[in-house]
């Protein structure tokens, strides 16, 4: 019985494979093909895309627009703002403000009040106390002296008036 030609062909089908270019293998056995000149064109396309990507990478960007710089600056600003707000809060709560410092320096009990003052503010307090105790007191004293002088003038006048009035009459009469 003759073996069918078709079966012979089928039988040899896979056995003839191997050691061919992949395109030929796929074309011969699987019926899959590619357009003519495809691999040459594909290579050009691949190399162009890779070159384009490399050029994109090398393109100089504006220094401050680079992500690392941008994010760094933004982070620094946020940090600086946070620190400023925090320090302000801390300073206000812990340190006596200048108004309070003025009031304390006006108080009579300087020694007791100095206990409430931080070491950092002590110089300031001392200066203010000095100003109050010495300078202002001096001014007050001066003013007091002026008052005494004026008063004395009034008294003198009044005494003179009195003396004048009595003595004059006496003198005139006698």
């Amino acid at each position, binding site marked *: 019985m003759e073996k069918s030609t078709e079966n012979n062909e089928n039988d040899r089908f896979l056995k003839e494979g191997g050691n061919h270019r*992949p395109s030929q293998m796929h074309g011969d056995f*699987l019926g899959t093909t590619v357009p003519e000149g495809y691999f040459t064109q594909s290579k050009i396309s691949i190399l162009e895309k*890779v070159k384009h990507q490399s050029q994109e990478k090398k393109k100089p960007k504006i220094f401050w627009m680079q992500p690392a710089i941008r994010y760094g600056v933004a982070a620094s600003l946020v940090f600086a703002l946070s620190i400023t707000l925090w320090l302000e809060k801390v300073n206000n709560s812990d340190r006596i403000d200048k108004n309070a410092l003025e009031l304390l320096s006006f108080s009579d009990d300087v020694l007791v009040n100095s206990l409430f003052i931080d070491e950092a503010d002590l110089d300031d307090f001392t200066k203010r106390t000095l100003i109050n105790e010495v300078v202002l007191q001096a001014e007050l004293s001066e003013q007091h002296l002026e008052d005494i002088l004026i008063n004395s003038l009034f008294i003198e006048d009044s005494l003179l008036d009195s003396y004048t009035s009595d003595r004059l009459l006496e003198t005139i009469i006698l």
Partner: protein
Amino acid sequence: MNKDIELVSKLKNPALKDIAFSELVDVYQERLYWHIRKIVITHENADDVLQNTFIRVYKSMTGFQSKSSLHTWMYRIAYNESIRLLENNNKKAHHALAEVPERYLEMLFEDAYFDGNDLQKKLQKIISEFPKKQQGIFQMKYFDDLSFRQISDILKIAESTLKSSYYSAVKIIEEKILQ
């Protein structure tokens, strides 16, 4: 293998990278294309994946540590890119990935770059009926001409398992093709 090592060292040298990459494309383009084509079916899809594969290879070359061979590494990239395309297409077409095998032959025979005769269509049909892994093993061994060791590196399957799967596939094809 030695040629691959030489190529890798050139690719890692910035001064020689572009020339070496051109050489790499010459050596691997066709093989990778057919490896991809068998997964993504159509020529248009295979073209897209091939380009993406080489771009990824170019970008990742500095990180390539030679733990596997260049050949294996590139095949794995090609495989991953192929699967990524199929998953994206499936999302767009609202098809589950599991449904793709059912449409495999339909898409293949409708492709503009398939002009197989009845015998070739018959072979395609027989191969499509194998489990996915066995399909890959047979195609890589027979059509891509890879060694069992190379296939083992790519698929992470023991060589003994690969051999058994391959010869089983060959036997089934030989029986069915004669029917």
